[in-house]
């Protein structure tokens, strides 16, 4: 099953992509998803980012529900 991942700011800029699908399996953790993203995009290895699940910043050890809207968020710059 697929979940959509949204990329923002310098992350979208670096990988040249603002959204794509990833494979979801039951019990998928935020940390595992992060590893998959870093494996696919080595250019992000020094990039600090938070992962939001359904618009909430998630701890790394939390499982990702299905369906979910995932977002990779680089440091904020509002204000």
């Amino acid at each position, binding site marked *: 099953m697929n979940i959509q991942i*949204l990329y*923002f*700011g*310098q992350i979208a*800029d670096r990988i040249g992509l603002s959204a794509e699908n990833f494979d979801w399996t039951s019990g998928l953790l935020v940390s595992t998803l992060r590893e998959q993203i870093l494996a696919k995009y080595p250019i992000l290895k020094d990039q600090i980012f938070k992962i*939001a699940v359904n*618009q909430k910043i998630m701890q790394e050890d939390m499982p990702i529900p299905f369906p979910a809207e995932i*977002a990779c*968020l*680089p*440091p*904020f*710059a*509002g*204000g």
Partner: protein
Amino acid sequence: MNKVHKPKKVLMQGPIDPQMVATSLVNHQSKTNIGAHALFLGQIRADQKDNGVVTGIEYSAYEAMAEEAFHRIREEAFTRYDLTCMHLYHSLGVVPVGQISLFVFVSSAHRRASLEAVDFLVERIKQDVPIFGKELIGATGDYIWKENN
């Protein structure tokens, strides 16, 4: 203070017109329980960078989450401080140097509530809202991604 405040759209395209500030004040002159307005405005600086001078910031956001974050910050401020009104505006897209990208407007009966609330709001907006900014450098298309400290 348990009244629920209708979510209002905070994000808007382009710079914030200083005229909006005057209009906001005029709109609150009929609220005769207000004794204090505290305002904060963020303006784009022409900072010197290694590769040139900043000419503007191009803002983008995870818009749905950003609006939700603004809404939560707003509700928390209404809970913490005894406020009459609160209005927040933040730019998206390009805001040139010297133009305004953030407008925080708080009104209260007494001065302490609005002064403290505006401080709280500015810090929380910087910290909690998924807004991203590209500092545009010179005229050559260079840029640096901005990060709040």
